[in-house]
């Protein structure tokens, strides 16, 4: 069955490519591409500056987008949504700005071993600047953090906990609600990375009670260059700015400045208003499909892929053997074949997957592998894509000269 959804995506509609690399970046539906160009065609002016009709419209569109994001992740108010370039920038903002505000020598930052480098390196740097220490929370081989392990790793020295919602390698979902509660009992701030969860499942920041949540637009059908940092208002207000410059001040003198209110304090310089409008359109696109359909499709295809992979000699799935633990992300190794060779051979059959360390070197080391191949799903994938992948994967070892 060929998903009708492919017709929404110009690149997939006009191309024979089997795209299984959505966790790296998603393809873009036509409505999103139109929303971005519509901003430039109809509303283009520099938001917040122009005392003219267009400037006001640009500001209005940008702030409407902020509200769309707020409602999408169930934040209390739009001021808690900061537009940034991507999840990486969001996490650097928090690590730099919150880090400089609350970290002191001897403090601890508890970072899960499962993190993408973007939720790890900023904390290593914050620790270096402030004299704090990074402590790692380790997971089991199938990608699970036990409550006991978390209780053991956290202490009253812990000021910040950094944890991803869904792992970009293992696909597993972490119980943020439970861990945020424990973190708060120790007086720590909980920073969650939603880059792999927000595009694929309903996320309610108030229910999870995380203090910060980062995500990228480009992994959820929006263009590259627009992302979001959610932060609780009280914390955002306490934090110093990350970047300084235009449109983030109330007043400037020769000696200093009074910062603008949140979220503008964190949005220095000309913003990506067209990107924000396109992100809002991407959210409307997801909501039109509905997360029930998204999750049903992705879990059905995950199951189909994993069952097929089990039949192929030499394939080992990294993490949980259960399909329901994978959320559309399946990372695997193939005996005797380097992941980059696996990806190149799949590529020759026009199948796009990711190979390498997936920007999570400490996790791979913890799991005892140096690199792996990953397929990741999106709403536009269908059974045909999975069958093409399985057919090609089944031939790789033979193509590399093995008997089976």
């Amino acid at each position, binding site marked *: 069955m060929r998903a009708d959804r492919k017709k929404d995506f110009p690149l997939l509609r006009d191309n024979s490519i089997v795209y299984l690399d959505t966790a790296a970046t998603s393809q873009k539906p036509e409505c999103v591409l139109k929303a971005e160009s519509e901003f430039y065609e109809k509303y283009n002016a520099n938001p917040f500056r122009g005392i003219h009709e267009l400037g006001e419209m640009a500001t209005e569109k940008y702030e409407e987008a902020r509200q769309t994001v707020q409602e999408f992740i169930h934040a209390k108010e739009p001021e808690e949504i900061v537009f940034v370039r991507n999840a990486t920038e969001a996490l650097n903002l928090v690590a730099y700005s919150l880090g400089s505000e609350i970290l002191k020598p001897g403090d601890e930052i508890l970072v899960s071993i499962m993190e993408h480098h973007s939720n790890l390196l900023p904390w290593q740097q914050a620790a270096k600047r402030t004299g704090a220490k990074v402590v790692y929370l380790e997971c089991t081989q199938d990608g699970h953090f036990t409550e006991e392990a978390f209780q053991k790793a956290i202490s009253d020295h812990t000021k910040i906990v950094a944890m991803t919602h869904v792992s970009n390698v293992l696909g597993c979902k972490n119980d943020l609600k439970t861990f945020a509660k424990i973190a708060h009992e120790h007086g720590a701030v909980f920073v969650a990375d939603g880059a792999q969860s927000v595009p694929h499942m309903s996320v309610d920041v108030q229910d999870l009670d995380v203090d910060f949540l980062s995500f990228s637009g480009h992994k959820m059908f929006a263009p590259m260059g627009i992302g979001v940092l959610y932060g609780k208002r009280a914390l955002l207000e306490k934090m110093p700015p990350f970047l300084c410059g235009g449109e983030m001040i109330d007043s400037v003198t020769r000696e200093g400045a009074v910062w603008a209110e949140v979220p503008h304090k964190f949005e220095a310089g000309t913003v990506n208003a067209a990107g924000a409008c396109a992100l809002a359109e991407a959210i409307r696109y997801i909501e039109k499909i509905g997360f029930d359909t998204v999750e049903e499709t992705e879990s059905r295809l995950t199951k189909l892929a994993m069952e097929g992979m089990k039949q192929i000699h030499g394939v080992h799935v990294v993490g949980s053997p259960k399909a329901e633990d994978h959320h559309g992300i399946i990372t695997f190794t193939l005996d005797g074949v380097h992941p980059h060779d696996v990806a190149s*051979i799949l590529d*020759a*059959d026009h199948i796009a997957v990711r190979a*390498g360390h997936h920007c999570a070197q400490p996790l791979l080391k913890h799991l005892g592998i140096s690199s792996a191949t990953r397929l990741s799903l999106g709403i536009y994938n269908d059974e045909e894509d999975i069958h093409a992948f399985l057919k090609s994967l089944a031939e790789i070892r033979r193509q590399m000269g*093995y008997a089976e």
Partner: protein
Amino acid sequence: MQNKTFYNEILTEHNLHPEHKHALDDANLVLEGVNPSCGDDIWLKLKVENDIVVDGAFEGDGCAISQASADIMLDLVIGKTKDEALKLADLFLKMIKGTVTDEELEELEEASVLQDISHMPARVKCAVLGWHTMQEMLDEKD
């Protein structure tokens, strides 16, 4: 299934059964070559006497392209003078850049199976790893 990969028999044979992948205790030139994109990590070992590469070997891990390319390279350069080995490295890099002539290609013998890698920019570093490492080793001796 027929597809357009360059993983042909020569390449896979050198990857699965590399003749020169072993220790070389009497090597007098040893250098590590690393390709961070694939995680290829090889140790190239050469025994050079009177400007002649009398023996050579490599150890380490990596993708099929890096492994086969290093093995094919050693096949070619063992027994050659330093200058001849460096000239072959030049030709190999010219081939990857797509500026090699047909005559030059013949001199590269089996290494010419890697010619198509020039169409795969992401994998060029794998193919040239051994050759670059050898260039560095032999140039340094001057």
